[in-house]
């Protein structure tokens, strides 16, 4: 068993610092690179994220066939709630006409995206807390399989919040703000994204519970992010050239390959 304080503080540091870094990098780069490519990059990350979270829910317990009982009903129900809830909360913010939402709602949209993406952290944190509690090892890194696993975790926590940063760059019009307001926004989005993960790590250490439910909820919630990130890809921006689709495809590929590369450290 690893002590609660040691495991929680390690989780806190290895989650919030990479998150802040990832958000800072993507929002800074978005001042230099057209928003469409930033969004395409984030969209690539989202595809891997979706596969990852739905795996955490054991693909909504599909292996049980029709015999999964209440547990299966529970994960499917949570997935559906995750989908509908965010669309319902955000229904009045031009979700289907993204052009109209640009610069109109402040930080609301990126914060909602941060919550939607952060939910899966409940499951991740709980799995971490449970492992830290039950391991016979005295080293956290050894309990999870070594340094490369730690590197994989940190890299994926740099990349995931880039989806939030892409939404911030498109919907919140950050270029008009000061450096101070930019940093405040990045910090706020980081905190919102990280809180579920910390809750998971703390509760998972104290109680053993099934994380597949949280991954199911997180997978459903990520559908909202799909719509928020897909919309800006189709907003006209100046004269369209035949190179534009290729640039978008390359940006998307870079996104999914970046998360793939970070997962390689976990294998």
């Amino acid at each position, binding site marked *: 068993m690893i002590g609660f304080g040691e495991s929680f503080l390690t989780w806190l540091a290895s989650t919030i610092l990479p998150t802040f870094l990832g958000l800072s990098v993507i929002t800074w780069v978005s001042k230099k690179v057209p928003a469409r490519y930033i969004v395409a990059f984030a969209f690539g990350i989202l595809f891997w994220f979706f596969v990852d979270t739905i795996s955490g829910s054991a693909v909504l317990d599909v292996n049980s066939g029709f015999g999964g009982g209440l547990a299966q009903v529970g994960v499917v129900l949570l997935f559906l709630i995750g989908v509908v809830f965010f669309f319902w909360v955000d229904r009045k913010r031009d979700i289907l006409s993204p052009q109209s939402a640009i610069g109109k709602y402040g930080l609301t949209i990126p914060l909602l995206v941060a919550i939607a993406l952060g939910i899966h952290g409940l499951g991740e944190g709980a799995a971490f807390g449970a492992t830290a509690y039950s391991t016979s090892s005295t080293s956290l890194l050894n309990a999870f399989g070594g340094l490369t696993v730690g590197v994989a975790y940190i890299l994926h926590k740099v990349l995931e919040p880039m989806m939030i940063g892409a939404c911030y760059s498109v919907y919140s019009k950050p270029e008009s703000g000061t450096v101070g307001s930019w940093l405040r926004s990045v910090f706020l989005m980081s905190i919102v994204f990280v809180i579920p993960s910390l809750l998971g790590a703390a509760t*998972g250490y104290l109680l053993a519970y*099934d994380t597949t439910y949280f*991954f199911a909820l997180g997978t459903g919630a990520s559908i909202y992010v799909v719509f928020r990130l897909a919309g800006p890809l189709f907003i006209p921006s100046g004269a369209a050239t035949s190179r534009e689709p290729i640039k978008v495809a390359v940006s998307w590929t870079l996104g999914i390959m970046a998360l793939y590369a970070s997962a390689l450290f976990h294998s």
Partner: protein
Amino acid sequence: MAGSTLRKNEEGSYEATVRRWHVKSRRAYLLAATLVIVGAGFFVGAYSFHLFGSQTLNCWTPPANGSDTAVFTVVMANEGANVGFNGSAYHPAPWPVMNVTLGQNVIIHVVNNDTVQAHGFQVIHYFDSGILGGLAPGKCYDVKFTANLAGSFAVQCNIGCSIHILMQSGRLNVNS
């Protein structure tokens, strides 16, 4: 949710009064949404904390051992003696090792004894797809195939989980 009434004004023409029910409508929406979320949260919370359940499956009974069939049990766990695949966290690689004869039928009974998270199970060549998306906590699954190619094949977890790296050293040896 709106109602309307028609009444004659002083000039003799009709004007409509529309009664809007926005406030009630919003309250009804909020109430319904709150009930659904609280109800679902209670149901799922209670189930995930194992306050109730309908689990009748006995994962600890391995499948019947038919003629010329090799049956193995692989337990995936996050605590106790079985951490990893059959305790692979405590054994040098390769672990676990399953030896079969070419042409033999093979059943690998996989049990996820972890109460917390899903884990993956894949046998290279014979079960490349792995258990779709991993096996949920408390569930079991029988991987069945005929060993028709001699060699040594990796047996591993194929989804992301906190102890994924500890479940990468299993082997299936098919001897001719």
